């Protein structure tokens, strides 16, 4: 049973992606990421000396500030900040700069569905721009379920409203490796099959959830390739290559 999407995309097709890095003058790293009409700006400051009171001083500390487009900061924004902080802590190498704080500030420019994955991608690009040491990149995707059981990737706001459930999924990126294929397996699965973060809204069955995860995982390859290509293009500037 085919599902008709308003903008004519297939169920597994993502919206056009755009990413630019080093756009803010004063911040140490910045990036803007847009998926279709959803656009998020991320800025990274740091690492700066000192950690907050309840944080472990033997590791690097991250703080996330989420700024919505309009309105006051409430519980939704605090939840996004917490999810982003945990995701960033999973992907960054925390032992390289102990006793430092890195601030990540997310500014929502426009919300047209799939906002949290867009913000995670923007934050990851900004961290790369700032040179924060990371274990791998985080690639985030939103997958939602229609009531006929069909899974659809990267919904816009209208589609999100019609869906019964949705899942935000964050995977590690697909990496280049000098190792022969199949040698870097963690418990018999390649590293890319791991999942970093998963946030679900609504009611879905376990099988439907795994279907969402499979579809999301299949899309990470194209997102990783986009990021790599975007970075290579900016590397052609002699300044970036040193």
């Amino acid at each position, binding site marked *: 049973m085919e599902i008709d999407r308003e903008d004519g995309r297939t169920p597994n097709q993502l919206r056009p992606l755009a990413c630019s890095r080093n756009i803010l003058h004063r911040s*140490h*790293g910045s990036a803007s990421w847009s998926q279709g009409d959803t656009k998020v700006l991320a800025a990274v400051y*740091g*690492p*700066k*000396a000192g950690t907050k009171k309840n944080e472990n001083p*033997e590791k690097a500390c991250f703080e996330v500030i989420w700024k919505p487009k309009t309105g006051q900061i409430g519980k939704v924004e605090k939840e996004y900040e917490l999810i982003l902080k945990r995701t960033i802590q999973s*992907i960054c*190498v925390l*032992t*390289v*700069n*102990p*006793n*430092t704080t890195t601030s990540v500030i997310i500014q929502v420019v426009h919300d047209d569905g799939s906002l949290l994955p867009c913000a995670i991608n923007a934050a990851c690009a900004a961290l*790369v*721009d*700032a*040179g924060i*040491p*990371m*274990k*791998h*990149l985080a690639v985030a995707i939103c997958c939602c379920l229609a009531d006929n059981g069909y899974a659809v990737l990267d919904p816009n706001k209208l589609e999100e409203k019609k869906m019964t459930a949705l899942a935000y999924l964050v995977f*590690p*990126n697909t*990496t*280049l*490796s*000098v*190792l*022969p294929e199949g040698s*870097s397996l963690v418990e018999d699965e390649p590293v890319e099959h791991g999942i970093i973060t998963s946030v679900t809204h609504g009611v879905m069955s376990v099988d439907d959830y795994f279907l969402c995860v499979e579809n999301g995982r299949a899309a990470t390859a194209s997102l990783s390739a986009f*990021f*790599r290509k975007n*970075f*290579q293009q900016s*590397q052609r*500037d*002699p*300044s*970036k*290559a*040193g």
Partner: protein
Amino acid sequence: MGTKVSSSPISLIDQTVVPGDVVLDLSNLTNQTIKLGSGLRQDNDVISSMRAGKLKYSKPNKYWVESSHKRYVPRPEDHVLGIVVDSKADNFWVDIKGPQLALLPVLAFEGGTRRNIPKFEVGTLLYLRVVKTNAGMNPELSCTDASGKAAQFGPLRDGFMFETSTGLSRMLLSSPTCPVLEALGKKLSYETAFGLNGRAWVNAAAPRTVIIVANAIMNSVTLSGTQQRIMVEKLLEKISD
């Protein structure tokens, strides 16, 4: 140049890598010492990249990821420009654009004794050498070279300091001389100091020379060698009439 590393199928040397890319497999290289520079970390048997940049290799055994950022990662024997933020009994606290403030011992000067401690005000610009950097500790600096001589380290008076990226300061310090500096040097006389931490200082007799040199350097970030020479020629032409 892309040299093959043992018998691996692909080599990432001189390629752009992103965090997570596995660049070396240690199980194939036995009994070799490998030196890892910035941006690489060891994860059991593989070396993977922590930053996005270009993977570089220098014989016989040095690997690193080269990238340009606004902040600096202190390394020993780097020459940097620091700004004094505080002075205590034993050390000056100096900001070198790194994750931590750095310490400059009060006696780390040529002929430094307890009787002739220099008095640096907060905000003084110093040309310094990074002595040691240990994980978790503040980096240590010195105003002498390894043999204890002053060798032009110390405060930089007058002139104009501006911030650059680490990639641009590496380009300005490369040898042979960077094309923009050479082209400017043919017509103008000026002195400069560049810190690997992304700070540059320019001084000349007249303020307009300082401004011309500083603007030419800031414009040359994305230009190739020939483009830099053309840019400097055009700039000097405009100024002279």
